């Protein structure tokens, strides 16, 4: 039972070849490169979407922070498309792998922190002590702020992994339950099936929201540090 339930999260290898590489690279095929001044509908729609997201996200940043625009738009499109493709039956979702999410979160968070240290050293160090704290509390508060700083990349990675994994697991379980209930009591099976449909709609939302949250938080850490 355990082996069956988690089997969709094993990194796919076919006869020793890691085809996970191809699965991770697949979403890039869905974003054709624009080669004309006026492009076809798919490329125009994607450009429009990218502009919408960029305007919304980069408005609050200084010119220094806006140099990260390409990185952030790539991040949100990559995570969003990967999550949405994972909702197809029998597909493998790379964002369920803690390795990949840690690999995304740690370098991006470290980049924002190091940028802050290089350009605004005093201001970035001042983040460790909120304004107006009573003097006796200062040592404890610095320790707490340091811990909360270092937990940011872990939280980013684990949040994405846990949300997508939990959603996929729930869909497996409820789908299996609906299938088993058909022979026992069709009414209950129907109710379970409706729950499955609602859950799938939720998973679509979660797929997009998680991409948004990840990118928004990276953008927030960037804003703090530029």
């Amino acid at each position, binding site marked *: 039972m355990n082996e069956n339930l988690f089997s969709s999260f094993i*990194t796919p290898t076919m006869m020793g070849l890691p085809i996970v590489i191809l699965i991770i690279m697949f979403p890039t095929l869905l974003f054709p490169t624009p080669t004309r001044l006026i492009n076809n509908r798919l490329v125009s729609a994607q450009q429009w979407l990218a502009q919408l997201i960029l305007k919304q996200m980069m408005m609050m940043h200084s010119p220094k922070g806006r140099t990260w625009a*390409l990185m952030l738009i*790539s991040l949100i499109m990559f995570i969003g498309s990967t999550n949405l493709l994972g909702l197809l039956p029998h597909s493998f979702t790379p964002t369920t792998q803690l390795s*990949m999410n840690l690999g995304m979160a740690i370098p991006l968070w470290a980049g924002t922190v190091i940028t802050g240290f290089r350009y605004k050293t005093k201001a970035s160090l001042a983040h460790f002590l909120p304004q107006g704290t009573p003097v006796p509390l200062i040592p404890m508060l610095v320790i707490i702020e340091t811990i909360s700083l270092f937990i940011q990349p872990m939280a980013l990675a684990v949040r994405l992994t846990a949300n997508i994994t939990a959603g996929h697991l729930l869909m497996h379980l409820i789908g299996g339950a609906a299938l088993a209930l058909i022979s026992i009591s069709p009414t209950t099976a129907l109710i379970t099936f409706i729950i499955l449909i609602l859950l799938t709609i939720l998973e679509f939302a979660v797929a997009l929201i998680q991409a948004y949250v990840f990118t928004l938080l990276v953008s927030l850490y960037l804003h703090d540090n530029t």
Partner: protein
Amino acid sequence: MPQLDTSTWLVTIIAMILTLFVLIQLKFHKYSYPLSPAPKTFKSTSFPTPWETKWTKIYSPLLLPQQ
């Protein structure tokens, strides 16, 4: 939990780094958002000297004194 099997972590991370930092960014950096085409305004940077502000007939080449 299969996600904690670290034998596959290296492959996954390298594939992700390649995709996220190279492939996807190569696609998105080609996006261009040109402004709508509009005629360019002609503004000359040189100002006409007082005797050139008004076109007078004597500047026509065939009317200059023939040398």
